[in-house]
């Protein structure tokens, strides 16, 4: 997608933030260049325009200055997979647009077609400092559709959908088999079935691409011949070829796979156990797919292999129960184990209602050996880099979007209260359906 254009739109709609806003006197966790005590951060036109220690930054005279002494200020958090905007009440099917489960291979499902900007879940989420997210379909099928990257504020879904079809999940966790019961069994019932079906889909897409390439070639040849004919008007043998070639029938499903087969966009390859992980990676290699890994919660035996793949890993969620044969902290310590091997890690909530708890996952991982700064990076800059938006998001740097969170303490600690959130420089009202209920019943 044309990312630049999208961001331009975003900033122009935030035009009411023309006003200069200054956060003065807080502790700035820049992510990219350390911590600045007694910092100053200037926002204008939806962007961070200056950041530094107090005294080193000119505070514009006409700026609105917010005293943030005692506060901790950090970039908006990025959740690298969730279902926000696709569900409201989990058990109420009429409120769910999570997955089109009529078939396993549905790459032409675009979450942006379902993303519900007015979802009550979104204010609840951003109140805890999560400002951006990868929205993915549910994981029940191997290829359920394509993800979008959103910001969690905006008047319409158009405004919130920053990058459409940013990536495509390929789920191979074992949960996608349709073998609920022997009577209701349906293809693919096994991992072999799932892999064969995926392979066929990618082969079909390759064929499809070939048909279009052949057509394009014929078309240009025909055009060439027409040119030739113009030069030799009486060449009767060429008359037959004058008709332009018929284009192949468009197939949206196969068309959707092409950017991934061409390595233009990443696949999010989800697997849990070592065997599934290796099957899925082999499949990705077979078709030269560019990918990032996801989950790998029970692949501790092959972490060196994972490191050798040199791709980012969206870990967890680390709350995933260990297998009966695993020690209680096997999944909790996975981020630290990967980090030790030089793997770039990212956290995701893989949730909808509880996305707000994303930072606590990162915090808990530090109790099992992940360095604090890395934990923070895993929900900010690492995510931004992985999704190709690090020029705009993921750290407090001049020139980046003003997605800024002001809290009364450590962002990874669940005791910390978020006081103010800015998204694209806009001050977010710190209210949600939940705060309204709280206030309604507090008064009695």
């Amino acid at each position, binding site marked *: 997608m044309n990312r630049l254009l999208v961001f331009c739109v975003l900033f122009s709609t935030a035009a009411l933030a023309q006003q200069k806003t200054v956060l003065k006197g807080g502790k700035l966790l820049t992510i990219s260049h350390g911590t600045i005590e007694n910092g100053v951060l200037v926002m204008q036109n939806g962007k961070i325009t200056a950041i530094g220690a107090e005294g080193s930054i000119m505070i514009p005279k006409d700026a609105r200055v917010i005293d943030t002494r005692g506060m901790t200020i950090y970039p908006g958090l990025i959740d690298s997979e969730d279902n926000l905007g696709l569900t*409201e*009440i*989990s*058990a*109420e099917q009429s409120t769910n647009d999570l997955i089109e489960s009529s078939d396993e291979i549905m790459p032409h499902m675009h979450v942006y077609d379902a993303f519900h900007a007015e979802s009550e*879940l979104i204010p609840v989420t951003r109140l805890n400092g999560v400002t951006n997210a990868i929205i993915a379909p549910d994981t029940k099928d191997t290829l359920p559709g394509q993800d979008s990257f959103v910001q969690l504020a905006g008047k319409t879904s158009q405004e919130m959908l920053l990058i459409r079809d940013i990536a495509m999940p390929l789920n191979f966790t074992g949960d996608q088999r349709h073998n609920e019961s022997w009577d209701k069994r349906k293809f693919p019932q096994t991992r072999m079935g799932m892999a064969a079906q995926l392979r066929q889909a990618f082969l079909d897409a390759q064929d499809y691409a070939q048909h279009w390439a052949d057509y394009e070639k014929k078309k240009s040849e025909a055009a060439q011949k027409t040119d030739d004919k113009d030069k030799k008007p009486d060449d009767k043998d060429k008359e037959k070829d004058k008709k332009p070639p018929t284009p192949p029938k468009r197939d949206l499903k196969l068309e959707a796979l092409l950017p991934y087969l061409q390595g233009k966009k990443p696949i999010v390859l989800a697997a849990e156990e070592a065997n599934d992980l290796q099957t899925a990676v082999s499949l990705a290699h077979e078709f030269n797919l560019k990918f990032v890994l996801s989950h790998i919660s029970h692949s501790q035996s092959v972490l060196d292999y994972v490191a050798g793949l040199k791709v980012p890993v969206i870990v967890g969620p680390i*709350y995933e*129960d*260990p297998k*009966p*044969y695993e*020690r*209680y*902290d096997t999944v909790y310590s996975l981020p630290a184990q990967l980090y030790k091997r030089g793997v770039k890690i990212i956290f995701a909530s893989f949730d*909808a*209602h*509880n996305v*707000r*708890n994303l930072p*606590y996952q990162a*915090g*808990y991982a*530090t*109790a*099992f050996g992940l360095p604090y700064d890395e934990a923070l990076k895993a929900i900010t800059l690492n995510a931004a880099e992985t999704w190709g938006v690090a020029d705009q998001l993921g750290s407090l740097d001049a020139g980046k979007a003003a997605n800024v969170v002001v809290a009364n303490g*450590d962002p*990874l*600690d*669940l*005791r*910390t*209260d978020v006081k103010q959130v800015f998204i694209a420089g806009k001050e977010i009202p710190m209210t949600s359906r*939940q*705060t309204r*209920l*709280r206030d309604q*019943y*507090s008064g*009695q």
Partner: protein
Amino acid sequence: MNRITIRVVFLFLVFSVFTQAQQPSARNEVVIKHAVVMTVTHGIIQNGSVYIKDGKIAAVGKDVSAPSSATAIDAGGKYLTPGIIDSHSHIALDDDVNEATSPITPQMMMIDAFDYQDKAIYRGLAGGVTTSLLLHGSANMIGGQAVVIKHKYGLNRDALLFPGAPRSIKFASGENPKRVYGGKDQLPSTRMGNFAVQREALVQAQDYMREWDDYNAKVKKGEKDASPPKRDLKMEALADVLRGNLLVQIHCYRADELLTEMAIAKEFGYKVRAFHHALEAYKVADQLAANNVAIATFSDWWGYKQEAWDAIPWNAVMSMRKGVRVAIKSDSGDFARRLNQEAAKSIRYGGATDEEALRMITLNAAWIIGVDDKVGSIDVGKDADLVIWDGYPLSSYGVPSKVFIDGDVYFDRSLPGFGMTHYSEGQ
């Protein structure tokens, strides 16, 4: 009925004798030193000590006099809390949680499904949980009778049973029963049906009690030809509800249903011990407090179904401030591993003090189960169920370092493998 009571008492005696035999040998004395002791009932003791004798807390304070023969454990300035208590769990039941074939199944005994080898018990233990209430599911208006366990993973089944814990029974209301039976085109399929089914069962139990009372009166009068009514396990269990012999634990979400359940309890003369989930408790907290009904709730889980749509993370503290006894429970093997974090959220959402937050997963949970005289705080005479923590327990960073139950270490994070002292794989 008396016969049955005697039998129950006898069974408990058998259990406790058996339990003694199953205990790990360690009756030795232990003193934990240099700990920040979070007592729950009488504040925090900096650089405090706890002296354990015969599995009980024998002394707690800045300085305790323990014999030099006692094994000393240096906590190295770490936090020491009571063992965490989970007042709503379905682990170790091997998925036999719901007998969803009838909306009234009070004769189900969860102990009959109790799988003492389930690793979920270990994972809870590693999260600091020492006691859990294992409940029937919520498919039925009146489900089965709970089992209370201590997380002594690695011992035999009966050694995991909490000695002398009172009996609890699970009730449910709202969406689950009406969905389960409505889905089969059976009664109940509405909330009206739910409560009608519940009242009807209680009326039958009243009749059943009357028959037995009549019979017992005849026997007392010496009527030789008096024949006993047929014993009915279902009715016996409900009669125990009406007699107040069972703690009534009710799965209930909506404010209107909380009120209806309390009204039915009043009508039939039993007490509700606690509402579980109770996500709308904040709307009727005054009434809950007035009836001395506790709640066992989630910290911030919401939106998973219609009746969880008005859930707010301030529920626990708003209810507490109105005088409701509040516990945070897991209802899942996952949350059970980090209940300390779930409780700590109440510090942020509503401003609970650290001690109030800790009480939600210790003493208040113990009260709901009816074992608050034995566990739930660091007080002399109570079971030595204790947790030494790495990091601050009421934060994102608290992780149990050592977990004691009845004075013995059952989990030690520094050990290789599973970190357990009474279990090794393949034993």
